[in-house]
């Protein structure tokens, strides 16, 4: 080799080049949100390629769904997106109800909105806190968890569980709210509202945070649509879509009469119904900062929705209604329904042969599509940007692997 180096300058140049290195980020890594494995091809600090490897949390939930009845499948949906189990329950319950052409009572409908939106707040709090952790700041994570704990306390009162609720079920909800719950929920919202400004101060408007997230991992509108991204990831790229408004009738009927504005940048600004911090000059639509910010906006939006739901629910004098029997037969046929979960559009597909046990149960995960875009976003970024980008997608491995 030595004699070649003396002759040809190009070879010397080649020799000076640093070697590429394959690095495994995960499955046991502090910032990969569970058991995600990212294989990085790095040249020094620069990442040339990122390949996500999944499957470490696969539990055959869909196959199990073919062996138990529709209502028995509810606890398995809990374990998909375990940070927003209520929304998962709701998605499955609505899909089965769509197949059964079942209509829940008015009271159950408002209670479902209340519970689902409250869980959206909890889920976004985890997403926000963990994102701070990805960027190396620890305290906002605990501030977020402190408030989430209070939501979990409320859920525990309502259904006895703190993480895997199985509260919303086919045909309604397993139980009505205990007395005094609404007051406690209202006082929580009261207490929580000013704290959002703290999060904005510590993260959204923090100079270092903006430096780390603005103009990083920019996902264009087209790219987001091409990869089937959904939820805050899609809206962070400026696509105005929200299943609660644009979804199927059975789902949008649930939100009928509720006033909310989709958290998306339209005509160069976000909805102006609240006092939000200004978009920093460095931020580009579709970057990590915008994805994060959309989540923060949705927290406020969900708070509004919870307040509206409390009013409507307490105005409803009718009965809550009982859920369908465990062995209630479904009509033969199939139904697919997508709902707006905190992470994105979660779809459930159910095929029935006329018995109570689905012939096929299938889940379409939003995190799966959102994660797929990683390799596009991480091309040519620095190692430190990889957690920043993956964190801004806010994926949950339980939902990806099911």
């Amino acid at each position, binding site marked *: 080799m030595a004699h070649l180096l003396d002759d040809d300058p190009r070879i010397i140049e080649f020799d000076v080049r640093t070697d590429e290195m394959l690095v495994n980020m995960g499955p046991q890594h502090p910032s990969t949100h569970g058991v995600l494995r990212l294989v990085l091809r790095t040249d020094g*600090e620069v990442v040339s390629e990122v390949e996500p490897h999944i499957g470490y949390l696969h539990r055959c939930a869909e196959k199990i769904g073919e062996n138990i009845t529709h209502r028995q499948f509810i606890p398995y949906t809990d374990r998909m997106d375990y940070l927003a189990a209520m929304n998962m329950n709701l998605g499955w319950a609505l899909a089965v109800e769509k197949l059964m052409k079942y209509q829940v009572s008015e009271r159950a409908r408002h209670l479902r909105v209340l519970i689902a939106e409250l869980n959206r707040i909890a889920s976004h709090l985890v997403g926000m806190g963990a994102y*701070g952790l*990805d960027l*190396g700041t*620890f305290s906002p994570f605990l501030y977020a968890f402190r408030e989430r704990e209070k939501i979990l306390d409320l859920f525990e009162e309502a259904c006895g569980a703190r993480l895997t609720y199985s509260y919303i079920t086919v045909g309604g909800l397993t139980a009505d709210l205990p007395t005094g719950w609404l007051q406690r929920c209202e006082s929580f919202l009261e207490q929580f509202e000013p704290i959002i400004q703290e999060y904005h101060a510590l993260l959204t408007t*923090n100079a*270092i945070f903006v430096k*780390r997230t603005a103009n990083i991992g920019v996902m264009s509108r087209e790219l987001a649509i091409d990869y089937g991204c959904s939820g805050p990831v899609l809206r962070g790229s400026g696509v105005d879509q929200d299943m609660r408004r644009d979804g199927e009738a059975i789902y949008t009927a649930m939100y009928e009469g509720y006033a909310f504005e989709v958290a998306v940048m339209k005509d160069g600004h976000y909805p102006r119904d609240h006092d939000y911090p200004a978009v920093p000059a460095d931020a580009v639509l579709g970057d990590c900062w915008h994805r994060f910010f959309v989540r923060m906006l949705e927290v406020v939006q969900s708070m509004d929705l919870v307040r509206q739901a409390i009013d409507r629910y307490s105005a409803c004098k009718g009965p809550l209604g009982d859920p369908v029997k465990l062995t209630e037969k479904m009509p033969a046929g199939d139904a697919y329904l997508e709902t707006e979960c905190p992470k994105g559009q979660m779809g459930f597909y159910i095929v029935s042969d006329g018995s109570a046990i689905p012939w096929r149960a299938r889940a379409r995960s939003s995190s799966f599509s959102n994660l797929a875009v990683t390799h596009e976003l991480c091309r040519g970024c620095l190692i430190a*940007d990889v957690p920043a980008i993956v964190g801004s997608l806010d994926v949950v491995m339980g939902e990806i692997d099911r």
Partner: protein
Amino acid sequence: MADFLITTLELPAWLAWSITAMVAAVLILNVIAGGALVFIWAERKIAGRIQDRLGPTRTGGKFGWLQSLADGIKLLAKEDLMPDGADGMLFRIAPYVSFCASFCAFIAFPFAFDFIGQRLNVGVFFVIAVLGLEVFGVILAGYASASKWSLFGAMREAAQVVSYEVPLGMCVVVPVMLAGSMDLVTIAEKQGGWFTSWFLFHDPFTFVVFWIYVTCAIASVNRAPFDLAEAESELVAGFHTEYSGLRWSYFFMAEYGSMFLVSALAAILFMGGWNGPVPVASILGLSEGTSDTANYFVRLLGMINLLGKATLGVLAMMWIRWTLPRLRIDQVMATCLKYCTPLAAAMFLGAMLWQIALPGGLVPGLRRPAAEIREGWLPGPGGAARSVGEDAGTVVKVGA
């Protein structure tokens, strides 16, 4: 002490000096180890309070004050692991290199007038230089661990610390220039009197230099937001990913030792060292240097003063750590090369011109020369009237 051993106990000189050195080493070691224990406990409590939790509450009865000791015992009892592909000798040596650097820097560090391991006339230079050696331990650890994450951590550490030594050196040179000496004792003595004579308030340039020093000091001891070498969300644990047990705790102690050292250095260089904001001792008439008891009392008071200031610095670092996100490596380097270095250079020039144009300060009576307060204590003639040009020349060479 050596003199005492030679004259009173009539020991041979080599034995006397060895005993003195050992006593000093043990004392300094205890200061670092004890300090690390206290600071680790404090960090846990402070982090807890900042994050709306309690931190340790039970170990040792109240406030969890024995928590660090319990941690230490746990670390001692842990299995000593070494990765298969690791370079055994370097892997074992690395933590000690780090710790020794942090420890050795304390040798020339005065805790009060005369409370010093070995007074050096180039004390500042020695402390900064030896502290810079700490990076070798980290690089060795990263290289020898046979782990890619460790290697990344070591690469970052090398790039970052070596870059930040430049502006750090420039900042340190400013007080050296003002005092006209590289002796830490002299520098501190020059700031005697009221707090207005601290170099921090000497002129606007030194005030800015102080904040640049703080930034660079945090970066050079790898604390957040510059803790890239061990960035846990990116590099697992950076250079000490593969370390466990006692070896890991040496890195930890070195980190806390360096934190304390740079804070104490800031106290000496900018905040009057062991001179309190109010010259209590001289008001009480104790600072005449007449009786030994009075001297000892004054020095003890001074040491408490210095430790207090250094502790404040360490607490500020903890506060910053638990508040801010981490910067990215390119941003860290940009902060150093684009902002800190030119700014420090400009401030150095400004302070130099100020010293020539207004040697007595804006309000002449405000700053009393140290010589007035502790005349007779200083070796040789001191005071603000010392010629600047000659010393500045020497200093520039060191800074470069």
